[in-house]
């Protein structure tokens, strides 16, 4: 609700309880943001200070100024090439895993027999640390970007299938009964009820997958790669260039946050569209 502001000359010095409440809320928000920024600055400052006073060995731990220097002296085209590699692998893996996961979940929802038959396999695949499949993947699809994408897909897809299927199966029985009594086909139940009812769950799944896709991509790049941020980190550690390792990590951190925020934006839009509170 918008509060009508009176003309400045008419402002009563005494504030209403509503104004006091709103002012408190605003102050609370401001102090939270300030503390968040302060915490970051303090961390950076302390790190820099500790390094410059030789409390820590900046050869091992690096320090903010050296990270900054590395980032500013690194060949921009080269850095972008690495960023592009990682980003493309991550996005392809993310999209492929999410779509494929949803398609599989739809099939498992539709065919109860298939669901019952595959259940133990899904449980095992879920329990298995997917990274263990790394060597197999490399031998099967070759050591390159394709192996990284496959690794990303594997890490995301099982969780996607399980969580999406779970959402599909927990749709209100009453609503299904209602549609069935209207003579709806399975496909109509899917498109008119199951999918729309699960939009929030699907978006939430995307949010989880963004994180998992980064895990898969970087893991994949650790195993096989000649380019990418994961490669830079591994390369940096092997030649003991901690500045490079830290700088790549910082870039990775920024990219992952941007991608997460993008999905969070999509979430806000769907919430508006689907009239979901909170």
């Amino acid at each position: 609700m918008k509060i009508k502001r009176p003309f400045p000359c008419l402002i009563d010095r005494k504030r209403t309880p509503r104004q006091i409440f709103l002012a408190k809320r605003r102050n609370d928000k401001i102090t939270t943001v300030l503390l968040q920024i302060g915490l970051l600055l303090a961390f950076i400052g302390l790190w820099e200070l500790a390094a410059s006073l030789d409390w820590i060995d900046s050869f091992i731990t690096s320090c903010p100024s050296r990270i900054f220097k590395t980032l500013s002296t690194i060949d921009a085209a080269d850095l972008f090439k690495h960023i592009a590699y990682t980003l493309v692998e991550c996005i392809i893996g993310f999209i492929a895993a999410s779509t494929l996961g949803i398609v599989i979940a739809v099939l498992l929802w539709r065919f109860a027999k298939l669901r019952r038959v595959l259940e133990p396999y899904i449980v095992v695949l879920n329990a298995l640390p997917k990274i263990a499949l790394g060597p197999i993947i490399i031998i099967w699809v070759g050591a390159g970007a394709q192996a990284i994408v496959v690794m990303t897909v594997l890490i995301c897809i099982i969780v996607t299938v399980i969580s999406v299927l779970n959402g599909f199966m927990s749709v209100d029985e009453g609503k299904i009964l209602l549609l069935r009594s209207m003579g709806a086909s399975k496909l109509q139940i899917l498109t008119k009820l199951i999918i729309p009812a699960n939009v929030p769950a699907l978006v939430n799944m995307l949010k989880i997958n963004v994180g998992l896709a980064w895990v898969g991509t970087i893991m994949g790049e650790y195993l096989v790669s000649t380019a990418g941020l994961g490669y830079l980190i591994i390369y940096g550690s092997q030649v003991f260039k901690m500045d490079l390792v830290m700088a790549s990590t910082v870039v990775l951190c920024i990219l992952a946050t941007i991608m997460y925020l993008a999905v969070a934006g999509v979430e806000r839009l769907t919430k508006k569209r689907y009239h979901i509170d909170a």
Partner: protein
Amino acid sequence: MALLDIDHVDLIYQTEKSETEAVRDLTFTVDEGEFIALVGPSGCGKTTLLSMIAGLLPPTNGAVKIDGEPVVASSGSVGYMLQRDNLFEWRTIESNVMLGLSVQKKLTDESKNYALGMLDKYGLGEFRNSYPTELSGGMRQRAALIRTLAFKPRMLLLDEPFSAVDFQTRMTVCDDVHSIIKSEHKTALLVTHDISEAVSMADRIVVLTKRPATVKTIFDIDITAPSPLRRRENPRFSEWFDRVWKEVSL
């Protein structure tokens, strides 16, 4: 010919643990325009019976016929109203009301106008672009009824549609639903465990026995009153209430 003809219906459930006889040799008919209430001890298979009438569950023996034809769910001849309104939260009231029409691929200008006309007629016209969460419980139940009426089913099945509405609104919602059904000349079968609700709304009350359900008695309620609320005020209301109540609990 009766609109609904339930003819010597048996239903036997099979589960892993056991075989349950839910309905045994059940027979009754419902005429066009009648309002029938179905009462009986809890767990006697009333909802199961509605599922059979909706064509969602085939009877083991016997037949359920509407207009002389065995029922199938896909025919859209039956409108089912459940305990909760089951409005789809992501659809506007208008789009909720069109649900049955779109499922049955009957969305034409004519059918749309009919549905919208009903929203207007029953006081929901200004809420057509609202979402279900923005409506009160009573209004939601009315919207659910209009959604059911929109595709012009031959008969309405009401499965305790008032039990999820809070007590104070229940009476008004009963009145609402009853007057809409009567003014649209619809045939309705109400399942309820609330005997006063049954006596206040129905033309006839079918009392079922406990499981396996079969018809115990059929009462013709002869209180003439314009609405359920008025009926409750009639001196003969409590007399009927007692008779039905005794019949159910005996």
